[in-house]
């Protein structure tokens, strides 16, 4: 049995890696045979070499990554907390809802990068701008999903809580949040993706920023260094997948899946 599950794990890892291997090989071959000039696009072997250099030889990759990650954590945490509160207020107070829902609807559809020039003027060229960009990137989508999630909570669930004397902020914390957790998680997941996008854009455009994955990619442009750029791109991709698949999937597993809020498909395959 153990042997079988190990085999299944290996198989699923291979299935994930396989398409990357195919693309990698085609890419490498076409650069080696000069179908694609290596001055324009580095081959996978050079990218790998560069990765080893920046990650293990001089280690600057991690310094870039850590700067970005710190900004992400600050901006995204702020957006999550304030987004949850705003979403709850908008869904529970009809008057506030009437006033602000159109504003939220408008802002949720503005690409975050469009804010950056405004922020560069109002907040300066440093960390504040980048963190605010991250905040704006994830805040609105979290507000929106929280608001909708709470609005569709079963009326009888709320009535049941009321009949046990639970109202107000207690109702919010103990009933509305868990009852709408599926929507809230969707908001957080989308918000996190948007936050990364905003982060990279913000770092590229903020002149006073020295460290950050976005900055690393942008600076590599001065040396026509496509290998470093692609290392940066892959690092962003992998870390988003890691956070999404590992952290959020784990939260889902111990919450909404456990509570039977999601129809479970092919659970035996996951095990």
């Amino acid at each position, binding site marked *: 049995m153990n042997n079988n599950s190990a085999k299944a794990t290996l198989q699923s890892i291979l299935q994930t890696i396989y398409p990357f291997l195919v693309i990698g090989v085609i890419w490498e071959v076409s650069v080696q045979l000069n179908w694609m000039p290596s001055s324009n696009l580095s081959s996978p072997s050079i990218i790998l070499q560069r990765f080893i250099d920046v990650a293990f030889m001089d280690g600057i990759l991690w310094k870039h990554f850590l700067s970005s990650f710190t900004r992400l954590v600050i901006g995204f945490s702020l957006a999550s907390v304030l987004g949850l509160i705003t979403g709850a207020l908008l869904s529970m107070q009809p008057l506030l809802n009437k006033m602000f829902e159109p504003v939220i609807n408008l802002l949720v559809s503005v690409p975050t990068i469009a804010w950056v020039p405004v922020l560069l003027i109002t907040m300066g060229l440093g960390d504040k701008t980048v963190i605010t960009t991250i905040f704006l990137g994830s805040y609105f989508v979290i507000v929106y999903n929280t608001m909708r999630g709470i609005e569709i909570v079963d009326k009888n669930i709320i*009535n049941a809580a009321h009949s046990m004397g639970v109202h107000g902020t207690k109702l919010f914390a103990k009933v509305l949040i868990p009852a709408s957790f599926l929507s809230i998680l969707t908001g957080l997941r989308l918000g996190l993706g948007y936050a990364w996008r905003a982060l990279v854009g913000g770092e590229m455009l903020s002149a006073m920023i020295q460290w950050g994955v976005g900055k690393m990619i942008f600076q590599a442009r001065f040396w026509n260094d496509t290998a470093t750029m692609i290392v940066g791109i892959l690092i962003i991709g992998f870390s988003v997948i890691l956070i999404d698949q590992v952290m959020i999937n784990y939260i889902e597993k111990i919450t909404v899946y456990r509570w039977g809020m999601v129809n479970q498909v092919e659970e035996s395959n996951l095990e």
Partner: protein
Amino acid sequence: MNKPIVEIRNLNKTFKSDNQTLLALEDINLSIPQGKFVVLIGPSGCGKTTLINLIAGFEKPSSGSILLEGKPIEKPGPDRGFVFQDYALFPWKTVLGNVMFGLVNNGWKKEEARERAKEFIHMVNLTGFEQNFPHTLSGGMRQRVSIARALAYDPKVLLMDEPFGALDAQTRKHMQKELADVWEKTHKTVVFITHSVIEAVYLADIIVVMTARPGKVKAIIDVDVPRPRKYTEEHYLEIREQVLSHLDAEIEKEQMQHPI
């Protein structure tokens, strides 16, 4: 006669939609005596759910008043327990967590709440399922959790809105017996809604028959059949006929007004 715990006086309830008003309840006067099992029965659309929602405080009367121990009901509160047709359990809480919820939120210490919740889970025959989440239970089991949840914090009145309406016939019959047993142990004042005459006569001390559109009280019938009751007993059958004849008249009237 026991003294009334809930008194409904000259109660009217209208619902307004875009351009019409619907009179749901008209001039209801009703006393619910302490410690009695009162069943409201009537054709669909007679406003019995509206009436129980008003007692629960989920809705407000258009005129008239509802008093609980002499004080007007203004909002929902733990002095009334509510059992919903669709259970309305909290899916993120275990059976134990659901039953503890009303206790912990009304000043009980966690340890004491746990002990008391376990007693009530035992009373509805769910010992061993404390750590289950509601979605893993059958409909009948979920409704038992819901009953334990509503009884645990010791409300003065237990309100039950067609609690067995969503269950299959076998489970329903079984649940009626269990509820009768639980009631014998607690002698809680109960207001119970159903449209099953069999269920009404099996459970009730007092049956209130309601008319449709607008909902009014048509008849109040005392059920003096000794407990535990049998569905085949002669006196049980007599009362069943009595309730049925009241209801038949209502349903005929309803069909005269709204022919198919």
